[in-house]
């Protein structure tokens, strides 16, 4: 395995003379490509079917979220974070609200914490379902897409009933929740859990022992735990490479320490292991939801937060385990109503950097599999 630190940048002008020039080819993939999950452009240098190296060109969706934050109040910026990783908007909101709460030295009340955990874990399942459907579609298995989208709909319905939005939910407020759980929320969540459990078995029936799936994923895009750490790769990708690390356990936030769940890990760090890890994660999320929905305490849903928020001068870095990895917010306050600086540490952006290493010496068809298995959302990569 190449040391990721010694990877030289892709030299597009002078082809490497050790290879036959006739075979060597520089081709462009994207930015408008159905399998790049958005507007990702990849410049591939190939020797026949073999990938010699690649370079990602990103920024097509750059909206300047961090600059926007400096021109908004803390409350006004809250909905913007949903638009980064738009398939896991609830997680984005949780990270941002908790970071600002930390600056303000307030804590959301227990009831809000429980509802937050339920919604965040539902969102993790929705994000993994969307990943599974599109990833399988990229590799050529069409059926899982229909199955996962059908079941993901049930989660979106719960979101819609709770806050009126399906994707960009803006579900949380700084200090707790704006909305009390609607009548029948607990029943809906319980029904969903019992509904989706057999469905996850169904996905696994389609894929786990499917010979085509195994051929396309086993040994593809292998990355070692050491390289993951060097490249800052987090989330299911890191865990599939054998590193048992999840911020929910390592540095618990919200009230995750109240719940009993396991961190799945893989051994080989290949695309198949990452698939298995995410499948187990969905089941573990269901386990957390089951415990949380039983234990929702009564009480207020908002902590005492001033209407005009002026966090004291200071800075804070707070990170959570988003479905894609470590999502961090570094917020600097100058004591005014607007944040002086908000830095978002996006998991997709950092994870995408590993694409080059994971694709070297693989076949060109596997690039698609590796992009899928990294589970990136370009809205978050470009921000």
């Amino acid at each position, binding site marked *: 395995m190449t040391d990721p630190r010694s990877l030289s940048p892709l030299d597009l002008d002078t082809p490497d003379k050790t290879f036959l020039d006739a075979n060597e080819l520089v081709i462009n993939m994207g930015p408008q490509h159905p399998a790049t999950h958005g507007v990702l452009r990849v410049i591939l240098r190939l020797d026949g079917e073999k990938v010699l190296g690649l370079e990602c060109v990103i920024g097509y969706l750059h909206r300047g979220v961090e*600059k926007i934050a400096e021109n908004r109040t803390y409350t006004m910026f809250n909905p913007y974070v949903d638009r980064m990783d738009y398939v896991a908007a609830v997680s984005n909101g949780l990270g941002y609200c908790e970071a600002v709460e930390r600056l303000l030295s307030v804590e959301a009340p227990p009831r809000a914490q429980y509802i937050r955990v339920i919604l965040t874990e539902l969102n993790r399942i929705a994000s993994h379902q969307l990943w599974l459907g599109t990833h399988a579609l990229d590799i050529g298995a069409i059926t899982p897409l229909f199955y996962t989208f059908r079941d993901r709909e049930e989660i979106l319905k719960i979101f819609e009933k709770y806050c009126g939005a399906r994707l960009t939910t803006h579900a949380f407020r700084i200090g707790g929740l704006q909305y009390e759980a609607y009548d029948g929320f607990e029943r809906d969540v319980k029904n969903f859990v019992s509904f989706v459990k057999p469905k996850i078995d169904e996905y696994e029936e389609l894929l786990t022992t499917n010979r085509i799936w195994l051929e396309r994923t086993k040994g593809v895009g292998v990355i070692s735990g050491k390289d993951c750490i060097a490249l800052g790769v987090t989330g299911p990708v890191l865990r599939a490479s054998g590193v048992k*690390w999840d911020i929910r356990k390592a540095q618990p936030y919200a009230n995750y320490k109240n719940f009993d769940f396991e961190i799945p890990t893989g051994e080989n760090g290949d695309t198949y292991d990452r698939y298995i890890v995410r499948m187990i994660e969905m089941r573990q999320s269901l386990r957390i939801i089951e415990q949380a929905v039983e234990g929702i305490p009564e009480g207020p849903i908002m902590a005492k937060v001033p209407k005009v928020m002026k966090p*004291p001068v200071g800075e804070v870095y707070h990170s959570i385990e988003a479905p894609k990895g470590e999502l961090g917010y570094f917020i600097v306050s100058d004591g005014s109503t607007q944040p002086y600086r908000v830095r978002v540490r996006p998991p997709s952006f950092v994870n995408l950097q590993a694409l080059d290493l994971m694709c070297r010496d693989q076949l060109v068809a596997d690039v698609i599999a590796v992009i899928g298995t990294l589970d990136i959302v370009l809205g978050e990569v470009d921000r």
Partner: protein
Amino acid sequence: MPDEIKSPPPPPPPENEKPTADKPATPGGVKSTPSGSVQSQTTTTPTETSTPPKPAAPATPAKPAAPAAAGHPAPPKPAGPVPTPWDSPLVAKYKREYGSGINPLTHLGQNYFEVDRSLIPEILQLLRDDEKFDYCVDLTAVHYPKRERQFDVVWVLYSFSRNERIRVKTQIADGESLPSSVPLWATCNWLEREVYDMFGIKFDGHPDLKRILLPDGWKGFPLRKDYGILQQDNEWVQINLGIESGQ
């Protein structure tokens, strides 16, 4: 009574100054004014409510407090936590070795080092090799245009074996560069490119330092405080569409 009348006026002017200083950076003049008015309205009420306790306390200290508040609007306000010295075996070791070059602090339960620019390569190397901070979580910068050394550069580091997260902070001037951390943490490749893209801070020895999120021909560095969104937009519209911008 004269004390009471005197003390409320000083806070609003600095409050009004702030939005105007930020104005060039706000996207639309229309949008910034309502928020500005909301600010001034709401800030007057807290100051009115907060001033009565001041005169209620000994009358003589209230008088010197008022001019101080006029000079620096920020100091009297934060009742929140203040950074305190951070103490641990790790810190003691480094403090012994580098003395005043590093300033270990803890704030809101989070630990960080303020490190002199010249010590940065050494400290980062030691933290990674000896203290096992093997995961560079994030690298970013903050711009303070009024300061002599305009930029704070911040590394967020995490150690898997210690389960500990720290930050390393240094100040550099505009045009000054930093040594690249790519040899230490491969992840710094894109992170340093982003800092360069947004702030124009150069990293010596970076394998491929170029813009990452913005197009290559972009002018200026957007996350600097003096970068106005409006000029950029107007200019683009004029050049590419050949019309005056509607903003």
